[in-house]
């Protein structure tokens, strides 16, 4: 006790570094949620009480099943999550489980917590003794159920969310996507996790909700206590614990500025994205997982300009089926209808898919088998995806886009495969919509130079600026050592965008930008001036970019772009933009 007092007297400001998931400042009280260790008493009950205990056990099961059903209905967005929870339900009604616990209660006078714990310990032993590692890993499903059930019996589970309010900054070891959604409803200020990565499902959701979040803050739990004042600095990737008064004041000012800006931006939700001289710009969202849809709808974007489908394929042990993909695409198309959704076929390097596709290791994955090349190497998987899209398009306005196009022959080949898919669906008498607009991602220099030929075969083009900058400047965007060479406004990039737009317009098709560049307010006028018709950004950035569009004129943007195109260096371009 004395030690604690000393500690709080001497408390000094501490900073811990992390990886920022979403920008913005949050100031609040630490609310640490950890999985509690459940203590199960080994006591026995009186023989007279067994029938009461049996009926209580029956009730426990019913309540936890109802809880699971609630989770499935309201918080499980992906098919995976639904299946995991549905397996947990089946575990709870397993006759072997129920019989064993009933036996332990009635014949051995165990309390129900004791009986439940005995059963799950026995199960764990069986799993641990299995030879096949794949099966032994299923133990986690059982551990989850055991935890869920026992925390209900011991009345420990219910207050996990109750401790959170609109002043909390939640701190956890790691967080699941459904939990992010639930704590968001508590209007908390931010989230910090000790583990986690910037591009996990949970992080993507927090980002699209504009909820400040920091991950990978190792050592944090040793430094922070419940209810301590902490600050998340999402702009610099830092947690500040017990800030000094002057530091706190500085952050309070920053926070206020951000809030004021947010309020102003919210007024733009129903405003159409058009320039002062009436050019309508389609302002769309990039999404990675279906969970983001709610935000897309909330911020009223003009459709989905880029649905990255990688998340259907990575972080799992098996491939998604055509049916599973169909359900997801259909769900999104229905929700967005009549606005368009652009689905991009798988775009990952072989490294990420290697666990399920058995791909060879590559020395240079960025120049290796990725994007459409992966699809061409795995035609059955490619066809599954195309068929799912063709079928889902019965309900909506879907477009299909191919990544990593370097040559128009790849478009010929992809089109041929689409035709084959249509025939195969027709032969099986499966309903689909044959009218599917297709487009190419323009992100490889050879595609820019030959964009006239590619535009002739496509219904739209979309420029992926992140990869375009990487490939045109030959700079790895994840390599710190060459970070200064990564220049989004390099004259070669601007000329590439302009040439692509010109070639698209000659063919009367639209051209979009869906890379990071479209999300930066500073580049908006430049992109419009270079001839871009559509911008696609993460849902959380929609209003910021809209604000920029409605305060620009197309005429001035074109003048600005013309001037920028005459510059020789990135620095000169930046000077004009500032």
């Amino acid at each position: 006790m004395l030690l604690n007092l000393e500690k709080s007297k001497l408390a000094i400001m501490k900073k811990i570094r992390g990886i920022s998931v979403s920008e913005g400042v949050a100031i609040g009280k630490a609310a640490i949620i950890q999985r509690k260790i459940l203590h199960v008493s080994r006591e026995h009950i009186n023989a007279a009480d067994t029938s009461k205990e049996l009926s209580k056990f029956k009730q426990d099961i019913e309540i936890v099943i109802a809880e699971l059903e609630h989770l499935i209905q309201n918080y499980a967005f992906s098919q995976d999550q639904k299946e995991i929870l549905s397996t947990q339900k089946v575990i709870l009604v397993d006759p072997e489980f129920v019989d064993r616990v009933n036996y332990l209660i009635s014949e051995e006078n165990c309390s129900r917590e004791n009986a439940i714990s005995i059963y799950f310990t026995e199960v764990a032993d069986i799993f641990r003794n299995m030879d096949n590692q794949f099966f032994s890993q299923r133990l986690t499903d059982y551990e989850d159920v055991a935890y869920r059930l026992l925390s209900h019996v011991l009345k420990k589970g219910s207050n996990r969310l109750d401790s959170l309010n609109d002043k909390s900054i939640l701190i956890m070891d790691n967080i699941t996507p459904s939990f992010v959604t639930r704590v968001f409803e508590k209007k908390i200020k931010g989230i910090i996790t000790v583990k986690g990565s910037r591009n996990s499902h949970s992080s993507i959701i927090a980002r699209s909700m504009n909820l400040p979040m920091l991950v990978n803050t190792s050592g944090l739990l040793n430094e922070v206590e419940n209810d301590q004042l902490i600050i998340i600095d999402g702009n610099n990737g830092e947690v500040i614990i017990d800030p000094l008064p002057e530091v706190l004041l500085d952050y309070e000012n920053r926070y206020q500025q951000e809030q004021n800006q947010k309020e102003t931006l919210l007024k733009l939700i129903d405003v159409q994205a058009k320039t002062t001289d009436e050019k309508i710009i389609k302002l769309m969202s990039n999404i990675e997982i279906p969970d983001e849809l709610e935000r897309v709808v909330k911020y009223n974007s003009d459709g989905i300009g880029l649905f990255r489908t990688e998340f259907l394929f990575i972080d799992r042990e098996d491939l998604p089926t055509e049916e599973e993909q169909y359900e997801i695409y259909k769900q999104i198309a229905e929700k967005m209808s009549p606005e368009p959704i652009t689905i991009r076929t798988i775009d990952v390097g072989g490294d990420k898919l290697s666990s399920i596709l058995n791909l060879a290791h590559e020395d240079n994955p960025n120049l290796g088998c990725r994007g459409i090349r992966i699809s061409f190497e795995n035609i059955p998987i490619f066809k599954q995806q195309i068929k799912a899209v063709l079928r889902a398009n019965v309900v909506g306005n879907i477009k299909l886009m191919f990544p990593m196009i370097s040559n128009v022959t790849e478009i010929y080949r992809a089109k041929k495969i689409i035709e084959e898919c249509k025939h195969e669906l027709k032969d099986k008498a499966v309903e689909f919509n044959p009218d599917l607009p297709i487009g190419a991602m323009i992100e490889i220099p050879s595609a820019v130079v030959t964009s006239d030929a590619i535009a002739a075969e496509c219904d739209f083009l979309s420029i992926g600026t992140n990869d375009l900058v990487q490939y045109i400047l030959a700079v790895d965007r994840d390599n710190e050592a060459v970070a200064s060479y990564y220049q989004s406004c390099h004259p070669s990039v601007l000329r590439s965008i302009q040439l692509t737009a010109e070639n698209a317009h000659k063919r009367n098709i639209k051209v979009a930008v869906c890379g990071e560049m479209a999300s930066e307010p500073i580049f908006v006028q430049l992109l419009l001036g270079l001839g871009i018709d559509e911008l696609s950004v993460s849902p959380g950035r929609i209003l910021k970019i809209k604000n920029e569009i409605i305060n620009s004129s197309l005429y001035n943007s074109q003048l600005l772009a013309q001037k920028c195109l005459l510059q020789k260096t990135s620095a000169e371009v930046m000077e004009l933009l500032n």
Partner: protein
Amino acid sequence: MIRKRIMIANKLGMHARPATLVVKAATKYRSEFKILKDDMEINGKSIMGVMTLAAEFGSELELVADGVDEEYLIKEMEELFASKFGEE
């Protein structure tokens, strides 16, 4: 009583997801349902039982149904196994 030999045709074998499907389908019927593999015999309506089979791709099982609706139970199981549980 009906006995039926059947092969596991999906690559990942009888993991949690297919096991859930088997148990859910079996519990719809009143008949008793057992699954035999090598020298193991388990209750096909128990997910723990089905998972402890650790039935991998290519392993052979014997399904045994006994009761008023045994035919329908076996028929549904045959369809379920033939569909590879919707997997590869």
